[in-house]
C-alpha cells in the first residue's frame, strides 16, 4: 500500500512542479533580458533564463527542459538577429504554445528595436557565421537596454493589463535610474576612448562602439570559428606592428587563446562578464556595466 502511495506521489510530481502562479511567465533566451524583465516586472512575473553567462547563445541544445518552459511562457524575449536560430525555432514549434509564436505580442526580439551594427554588405558563409541582420549582441550598448526597456514595458502592460500601473511606474523608475547611470558610465569610460582592443568573438562590438574604443582584431579567425594557431601567430605579428592595449574575452570563452596572445604580445588580457552573472559583481544590469568598465579601466590606465 505504502509503495502504491509513494508511486502515486512520484507520478504526481510533475503536477506539483507546476510553475508558481505569478501573473506572467517570462522566458528569456539570455541573462541580460531576464535581468531587464526582472527590473521591469518585479514580483509580477516569474522569469526563467534559458542560458547562463557561461553559455554561448549561438550553441544551445533545444533541451526538453527548455521546451517545457516555453510551453508555459506568456512572453519570450530573445536577442534575435539569428543569434538563437539553431535552437529557438524548435522550442517555439515544439511547445504547442500559440501565445509566444513570432508575430504575437508574447514574442519579443530585442535587436529589432535598436540600431544594429555590422550589417554585412555581403552575406557568405565563407566569411564565418555572419548574421545577415547585423550583430545580435546589442545589450552591451547601455542605450540599447534603455530602448528595449521601453518596448518591454509596453509589452508587459499589453499582456497583463491588470498590473499596468506597476509596470509603468517600475518602467519609469528604471529608465530614470538607467539614464543617470549612463551619464556616470560615459564619464567613467572616457579614458577608454580610442583604446585599441582585441576581442575574442565579435560580441563586444556594441560596447566598443559606445565607449568609442577601437577594435584591433579578434582571436577567432572568422566569426564563430575557434581560434587557430596560425591565426594567433598572425595576431602576434600584427600586435608587434600595431599593439592593442588590451585583449578581452567573455565569461563563456576559454581563456587559453587570450592568455597565449597576452604572453607573446605583452598585452594585458581581461575577462569581461559579457552578461549578468558573468562575474560576481555583475549581479544585475547596473553591475554588468560597472564591472565591465571597472575591469577595463584597471588594465587601460
Amino acid at each position: 500500500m505504502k509503495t502504491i502511495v509513494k508511486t502515486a506521489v512520484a507520478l504526481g510530481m510533475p503536477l506539483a512542479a507546476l510553475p508558481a502562479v505569478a501573473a506572467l511567465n517570462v522566458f528569456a533566451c539570455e541573462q541580460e533580458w531576464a535581468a531587464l524583465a526582472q527590473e521591469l516586472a518585479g514580483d509580477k512575473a516569474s522569469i526563467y533564463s534559458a542560458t547562463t553567462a557561461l553559455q554561448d547563445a549561438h550553441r544551445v541544445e533545444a533541451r526538453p527542459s527548455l521546451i517545457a518552459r516555453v510551453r508555459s511562457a506568456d512572453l519570450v524575449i530573445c536577442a534575435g538577429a539569428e543569434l538563437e536560430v539553431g535552437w529557438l525555432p524548435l522550442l517555439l514549434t515544439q511547445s504547442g504554445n500559440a501565445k509566444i509564436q513570432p508575430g504575437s505580442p508574447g514574442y519579443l526580439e530585442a535587436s529589432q528595436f535598436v540600431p544594429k551594427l555590422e550589417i554585412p554588405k555581403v552575406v557568405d558563409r565563407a566569411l564565418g557565421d555572419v548574421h545577415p541582420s547585423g550583430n545580435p549582441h546589442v545589450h552591451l550598448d547601455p542605450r540599447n537596454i534603455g530602448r528595449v526597456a521601453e518596448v518591454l514595458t509596453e509589452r508587459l502592460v499589453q499582456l497583463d493589463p491588470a498590473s499596468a500601473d506597476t509596470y509603468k511606474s517600475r518602467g519609469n523608475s528604471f529608465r530614470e535610474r538607467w539614464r543617470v547611470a549612463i551619464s556616470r558610465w560615459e564619464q567613467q569610460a572616457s579614458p577608454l576612448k580610442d583604446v585599441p582592443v582585441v576581442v575574442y568573438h565579435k560580441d563586444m562590438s556594441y560596447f566598443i562602439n559606445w565607449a568609442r574604443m577601437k577594435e584591433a582584431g579578434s582571436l577567432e579567425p572568422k566569426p564563430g570559428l575557434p581560434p587557430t594557431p596560425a591565426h594567433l601567430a598572425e595576431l602576434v605579428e600584427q600586435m608587434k606592428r600595431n599593439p592593442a592595449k588590451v585583449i578581452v574575452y567573455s565569461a563563456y570563452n576559454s581563456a587559453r587563446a587570450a592568455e597565449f596572445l597576452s604572453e607573446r604580445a605583452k598585452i594585458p588580457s581581461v575577462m569581461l562578464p559579457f552578461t549578468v552573472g558573468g562575474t560576481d559583481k555583475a549581479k544585475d544590469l547596473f553591475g554588468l556595466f560597472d564591472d565591465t568598465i571597472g575591469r577595463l579601466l584597471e588594465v587601460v590606465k
Partner: protein
Amino acid sequence: MHGKAIIALAVAAALGLSHAATAQTQDELKSLREQVRQLDRRVADAEQAAIQASSRPAGENAMNPAVSVILNGIYSNLFQDPNAFRINGFVPTLGEVGPGVRGLSLGESELALAANIDHHFRGTLIASISSEDSIGVEEGYIQTLSLSYGFTVKAGRFFSAVGYQNQIHAHAWDFTDAPLANKVFLGNQLGEDGVQLKWVAPTDLYFDLGLELGRGRQFPAGPAGGRNKNGVGSGNVFTHVGGDFGTGTAWQTGLSYLSTSPQDRAFDDPAGTTNSFTGQSRLWVLDGILKWAPNFNPTYTNFKLQGEYFRRKEDGDLTSGTSAKTGGFASVQSGWYLQGVYQFVPMWRVGYRYDRLNSGTASFSAPLNPADFPILAPYSPTKHTLMADWSPSEFSRVRLQFASDKSRSDVTDHQVFLQYIVSLGAHGAHKF
C-alpha cells in the same frame, strides 16, 4: 554707519542670490548640454538605422522560404559483397539497410524548404535526391502553430516518432549508417503518411504524449505503399519525459508502441523465392539520451550517450514461395544498441557504437517447414562501430568510420567509410 551696514548687507545678499542664480543656470545649462549631446547621438543613430532599414531586400522573393541543401559523398571499402548483404534471423525489410555501394559514390542529397504558411500553419518539404537520380519526398508536412494548451498537429509525410533515432535526418546522425535495430525493425527509417497529435504537459519537467495514425506505407506495415483500404494502416503512441541534472546534463527517455496489420508483406529469401506475411505486428521501443557539456556549453567539450531497446511481436500467416503453402507464424524478436560520442577538443569528436540483435523465438505451424525460410534461422547479429569526425564549422563535417559487422551468420564484414556531409543555406535547428 547704520545705513552703510544695511546697504552692504543688501549688496551682499543680492550678490549671494545672483551667485546662487548663476550656479542654478550653470547646472541647468550643463544638464541641457548633456541632453543635447544625448539627442545628438540619438539622431545619428536614427540616421544610421534608417540607412540600414533601406538596405533590406525587397521584392517578390523577400517571402522565399528558408532553403537549405545537404550534400554528402562517401568512399566505402567493404570486405564483403554489399549485394549479398542480409541480416540473418530477421525478415528483410526492403528498406535501404545495406552498406551501400563499394568505392566512391554520392550519398543522398537533400533539399529542404520551410516557412510559416500563415499564423496557423508552418510547412516543411524535404526532398531527397538519390545518387541513382530518383527524387523522393522524405518529409512533407504541415504543422500547427496556433493551437494552445500544448497541442500540436502535424499532417503529411514525416518520420514517425517511434524511438529516438528514427526522427533524426541521416545527415545529423552520429554514425554513417543506422543502428542494426533500426534496420530490422523500421526498415532503416520509417516515414509515414498520416497525422500526428502531440501534447506537451504544462510542467517544468518535460512530458509529452502523442498519437500517430498512418497509412502504413512502409515496413513493418505492408504491402509497400500501403493497403488498398479506407481507414488507418498503422498506429503509434509515444511518450517522452526529460529534464536536466545539475548544470551540465540533459536527459530524455521515451517509450513508443507501433502497431500495424501487414497484408501480403512480401520478402525475397536469398534463395530467390518470395514469401509473404499477413497478420499483426507490434513493436515496443524504449529509448534514452543523455547529453553532457560543462555548464551546458558544448563549444569545447561535450558527451552524448544514446541507446534504444526494440521488442517486436508478430503473429499471423506466412506463405512460402518454395512450397506455395500457408501456415501460422509467430515470432518475438528484440535488439538494442548503445552509442557514445565525445567531443574532446573543438571540432573533433570520436564515437563508439555497439549493436546487438536477438532473433528470439519463431514458431512455424504445419504445413510450413522452417527449412524453407533459411533467413529466419535463429541468429543473433552483432556489430562494433568506431568513428572519428572533424567539423571545421557548424556547416561541414568529415567522418571516418570503421565497423566490424556480423549481420550475416557466415561472414564478418569489415567496413570503412570516409564521408563528408555539408549543409548550405539556411541555418537548420537540430532536435535534442
